[in-house]
């Protein structure tokens, strides 16, 4: 997995027109986010508060989960616990099987992606329809989402038109987003009306009130939870917040960070099942308690899945969601994936220039680029670096620890580059030189110039 990201990224960059199209589309989201954030004078204080609330909650998570469970149960919500994805899927399937459900609609949940719920249920004869438009597009195409908020951001409208022509019978050549969306509305309306159960993710669980909040723009979570009598919600343990009032802080940040909207169209608070219906909540660990046990990893669990770090990341924008080996792409995925399985995602901590834009854009101040840097050290300690890189750094360190060797070596190298510049192409400079020139090597180093300057001798032009 060491070469995974660079190789995929290289292919993405090769299609220059598309790579720039992708970059501009996501940069546009960043611009919209900036404009939306700028309308809130207390933006930075909100970020600090949001971070603080999350860190506080994580530091007392067992207590808050128990409070949440107690109150949710009193509200008539059936609470289930799952250690891992497999157990989560088993619980969901058990609920559906007991009620003879054959058709389920689902709104966006990265957790169910993480648990691979869809294939699990499909293998057991249950139709699962993703109802978020972007998710439905990638589901019809047989692809995973390439972005956590805009799952089909990598597809051009003409390609979606082609897909809809094939799968939903739209006229060939139709690529107008309004008309394609209209067809999807019609198609999914039918699915909503037929569904016997609806599954949603959870944006926030509220310990104080024993309820949870689901946020969408399309209203798909609402269609899927107000028509069928059974609602199942899947929630990672880190989604709990202490109080209802804390939502005031998070909801001011979430949509502005995600899409540049002041708030999403629908922010639905569930505290009880439909009259005569059932409401199940599955609380899932799947590796989170382990991540929580280590202070330096804990912060990654503050993430509220807004996707702002993807939109701002200059590497994500130019390499696309599928260049990342983990199902969540971009900076947050490059932290979460390796936290789970470093060897399996060894290229991800390096798929970053460490520019820090992700850290500054994050509404809950996850120190993403510093986590990436820390993960690089772990990769080094676990001997996951490519041999050449490790040897190169060993050699460089050896030389740099010996100033006389460094100065002599530098002098020789500069001389070689001046008299035989072609030689650079066979050394470690070869990759650099593929798309760039090296700087013109000067005859003298700074140390030489320094001596002359301090001794009052004039500088010799190289």
């Amino acid at each position, binding site marked *: 997995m060491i070469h995974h990201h660079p190789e995929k990224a290289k292919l993405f960059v090769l299609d220059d027109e598309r790579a720039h199209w992708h970059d501009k589309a996501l940069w546009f989201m960043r611009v919209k986010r900036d404009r939306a954030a700028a309308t809130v004078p207390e933006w930075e204080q909100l970020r600090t508060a949001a971070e603080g609330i999350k860190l506080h909650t994580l530091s007392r998570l067992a207590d808050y989960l128990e409070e949440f469970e107690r109150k949710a149960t009193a509200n008539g919500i059936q609470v289930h616990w799952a250690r891992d994805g497999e157990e989560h899927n088993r619980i969901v399937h058990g609920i559906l099987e007991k009620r003879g459900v054959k058709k389920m609609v689902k709104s966006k949940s990265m957790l169910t992606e993480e648990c691979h719920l869809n294939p699990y249920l499909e293998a057991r004869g249950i139709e699962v329809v993703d109802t978020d438009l972007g998710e439905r597009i990638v589901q019809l195409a047989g692809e995973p989402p390439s972005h956590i908020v805009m799952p089909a951001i990598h597809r051009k409208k003409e390609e979606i038109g082609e897909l809809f022509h094939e799968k939903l019978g739209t006229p060939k050549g139709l690529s107008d987003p309004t008309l394609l969306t209209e067809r999807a509305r019609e198609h999914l309306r039918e699915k909503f009306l037929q569904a016997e159960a609806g599954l949603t993710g959870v944006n926030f669980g509220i310990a104080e009130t024993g309820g949870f909040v689901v946020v969408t723009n399309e209203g798909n979570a609402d269609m899927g939870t107000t028509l069928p009598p059974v609602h199942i919600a899947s929630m990672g343990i880190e989604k709990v917040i202490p109080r209802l009032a804390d939502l005031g802080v998070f909801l001011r940040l979430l949509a502005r960070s995600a899409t540049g909207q*002041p*708030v999403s169209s629908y922010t639905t608070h569930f505290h009880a099942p439909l009259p005569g219906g059932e409401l199940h909540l599955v609380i899932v660990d799947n590796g989170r*308690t382990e991540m929580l*046990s280590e202070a330096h990893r804990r912060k990654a669990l503050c993430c509220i899945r807004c996707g702002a770090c993807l939109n701002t990341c200059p590497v994500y924008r130019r390499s696309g969601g599928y260049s990342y080996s983990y199902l969540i792409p971009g900076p947050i995925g490059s932290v979460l994936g390796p936290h789970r399985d470093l060897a399996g995602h060894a290229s991800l901590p390096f798929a970053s220039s460490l520019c820090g834009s992700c850290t500054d854009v994050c509404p809950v101040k996850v120190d993403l680029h510093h986590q990436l840097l820390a993960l690089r050290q772990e990769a080094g300690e676990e001997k996951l670096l490519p041999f050449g890189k490790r040897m190169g750094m060993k050699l460089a360190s050896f030389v740099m620890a010996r100033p006389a060797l460094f100065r002599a070596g530098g002098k020789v190298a500069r001389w070689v580059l001046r008299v035989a510049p072609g030689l650079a192409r066979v050394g470690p400079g070869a990759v650099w030189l593929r798309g760039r020139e090296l700087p013109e090597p000067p005859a003298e180093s700074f140390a030489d110039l320094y001596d002359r300057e301090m001794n009052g001798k004039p500088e010799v032009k190289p």
Partner: protein
Amino acid sequence: MSAREAILSALRASRTEVVAAPAHPAPVKQGDPVVRFMESVKAVGGQAYRVADDAALAAGMAGLPVWSAQRRASLVPGIDGTVDLEAVADPHELADLDVAAIPGEVAVAENGAVWVKGESLGPHRAVFVIPEHLVLVVRAADVVNDMQEAYGRITLPRPGYGLFISGPSKTADIEQSLVIGAHGARSCAVFVVG
């Protein structure tokens, strides 16, 4: 050991030092909330109308093109619809509902959101999302500056259900082109009374 015990005991075993909960920042108030709310509703793709009183509301509703549709449901006192929601046994029967009028409890200036409590939805929660069009009615006195203020007003009496609605249903999942009317209402008109 059950999954519940396994998760909770693993969390307790990590013995994390408790971090104190921070105070929420005090939001800066920006201009007249009602004016700002109306602007926000328009910015999120809705229509905003201010009317002086209930009589003006009735007149305003009557003049609204979407309110002339065949199948209208109203949950707003004093406004009559054509569909009796109490007589509808199954929410699926609302699939051809043209428009619903629903009262909001709190309106938020910063984002055009209207808090609708579960009780205001009548017998079927689906009434806010299934019709083609939506009309929301709020009182000017119930307009607050921001979400933090809004949560100071919201109560969740049993059966606890409620939501913020900000404009019509929308999506931008195809090349980020904004399309109004994804799954829910294709339009959202908001009347501010008072």
